[in-house]
C-alpha cells in the first residue's frame, strides 16, 4: 500500500497552483488535508501524474466574519473550525457537525475545502453547506465563479469543479441570533462517515418560522429537504408538524443499499433523525 510515483509541487500562491493544474491538463490532483486523497493514493486507486499541494498557500487559510457572511479559506482545517469562537457564535451547526467528522487527528489535517470538494455523500460538511444555503468559490484559469450546492454536487464523489479549478472559499450565511440547531447522525462506529446524518437549523423572526434541513448519506448527493421545511414553516414547531416533516423526509430521500445499511433502513433513519434533529433544534432555539 505505497503510492505510485508522482511529481510533487508545493506552490506558495494560488496562481502558481492553477498554472500547474493547467500544465498537467487534468492529470494532476490538488492535495489539501490528504485525509481522503492519501488513502486513495496508498491503495493506488488514485494515480495522478502530479500532486499540487495547497498546504503552503497561506492565503487559503482564514475565517472571516463580514456582513452576515462567514467566509472560510478552503485550506482552513476542520480542527480550526472546531475551536473557532467565530464559528461557535455564528455557525453553531457547523461546529456541531465538525465533531462528527472523523476524529481529532483527522481534523488536524482535513480541510473544509477538501471535504466539500471530495463530495462524499455521507460527509457532514456538504450537508451543512446544503442546509444553510452556502456557496463555494472556485477559481480556474478563466477566472472565478460561485456555485451553490445544487450546482456543485453532481453525484457520488463527483463535483462540477473542473480539473484545473481550485475551490478557494466556502461561504456560509451566519445563523441568526437565537437560532436552534442540531446535527443528528447515525454511524456504526464513532468517527465513521454517517449511515445517515441530518443537519437542522430553526429560527423565528418576523412572526414566522424558518427551517433548514439537509441529509447526508441518504442519496448520491446531500439532499435539501425543502418540502419538510415548508411543513414546519406552515404548521409551526409542534410535535405533529415535526412528525409530519420526519415522515416526509423518509419519502423524499433516495438512498442506496451498501455494505453497512440497506436503502430501506436508511430511508427509515432519515425520518427518525429528522425528528430527533428538529426536536433538539427546537430546544436550543430562542425567541
Amino acid at each position: 500500500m505505497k503510492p505510485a510515483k508522482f511529481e510533487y509541487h508545493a506552490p506558495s500562491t494560488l496562481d502558481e497552483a492553477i498554472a500547474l493544474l493547467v500544465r498537467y491538463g487534468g492529470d494532476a490532483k490538488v492535495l489539501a488535508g490528504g485525509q481522503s486523497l492519501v488513502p486513495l493514493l496508498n491503495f493506488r486507486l488514485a494515480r495522478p501524474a502530479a500532486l499540487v499541494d495547497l498546504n503552503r498557500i497561506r492565503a487559503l487559510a482564514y475565517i472571516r466574519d463580514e456582513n452576515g457572511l462567514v467566509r472560510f479559506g478552503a485550506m482552513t482545517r476542520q480542527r480550526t473550525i472546531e475551536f473557532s469562537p467565530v464559528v461557535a457564535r455564528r455557525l453553531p451547526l457547523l461546529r456541531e457537525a465538525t465533531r462528527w467528522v472523523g476524529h481529532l487527528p483527522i481534523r488536524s489535517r482535513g480541510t473544509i475545502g477538501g471535504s466539500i470538494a471530495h463530495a462524499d455523500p455521507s460527509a457532514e460538511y456538504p450537508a451543512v453547506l446544503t442546509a444553510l444555503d452556502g456557496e463555494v468559490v472556485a477559481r480556474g484559469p478563466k477566472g472565478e465563479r460561485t456555485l451553490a450546492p445544487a450546482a456543485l454536487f453532481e453525484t457520488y464523489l463527483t463535483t462540477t469543479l473542473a480539473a484545473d479549478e481550485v475551490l478557494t472559499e466556502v461561504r456560509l450565511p451566519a445563523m441568526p441570533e437565537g437560532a436552534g440547531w442540531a446535527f443528528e447522525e447515525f454511524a456504526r462506529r464513532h468517527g465513521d462517515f454517517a449511515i445517515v446524518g441530518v443537519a437542522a437549523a430553526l429560527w423565528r423572526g418576523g412572526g414566522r418560522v424558518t427551517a433548514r434541513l439537509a441529509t447526508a448519506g441518504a442519496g448520491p448527493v446531500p439532499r435539501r429537504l425543502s418540502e419538510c421545511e415548508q411543513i414546519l414553516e406552515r404548521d409551526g414547531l409542534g410535535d405533529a408538524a415535526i412528525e409530519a416533516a420526519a415522515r416526509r423526509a423518509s419519502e423524499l430521500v433516495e438512498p442506496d443499499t451498501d455494505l453497512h445499511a440497506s436503502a430501506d433502513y436508511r430511508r427509515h433513519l432519515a425520518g427518525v433523525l429528522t425528528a430527533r434533529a428538529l426536536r433538539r433544534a427546537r430546544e436550543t432555539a430562542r425567541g
Partner: protein
Amino acid sequence: MADVRLTVNGAAREGRCESRKLLVDFLREDLGLTGTHVGCEHGICGACTVLVDGEAARSCLMLAVQADGADITTVEGLMRDGRLHPLQEAFREHHGLQCGFCTPGMLLTALDLLRVNPAPSEDEVREGISAVLCRCTGYHGIVKAVRAAAVALAPKPG
C-alpha cells in the same frame, strides 16, 4: 528525490527521499525512529499518529516532503530526563497496553486530547481515543490511564 529538513523530538534532522514516501516510512526507515508503527496505511488505525506542530496527525496520510520545516514529536520524544512522562507512567500503572503496538499512537492521541481538554469525562476520553484502534486491551486500561494522567497533569492548586 527531495530534501526534507525538520525537527524531530527537539532535534534538527534531515533526509532525502522520493516525494511519494510517506512520513511514517521516512521516520522509521530514514530516521531510524521505529517507535511509530504502521497498522493500516489508510488513516483508520491510528498506530502511526505523531504530533505535527503540536497536533496529533496520521503520519501515514502525510508525505515526508510535506513535513519539511515541521516540528514532529514521536513516542521516542516523550520521556524527559530519562523518566517516563506522566501519561506513560499512567499507562503502566493502569495496564493501558498489552502488545504495545497501538501504544505510540494511543499516547500521542491522548496527549493531544488532554491538551485541548485537560479534564475530560469518561465519555470524552472514549471519544478521543476512538481515533486509535487497540485489539488487546478492550480499551479499559487505556481509558483509566488517560483519566489518571489528566489528574496527574492538572496544575496543582496554590
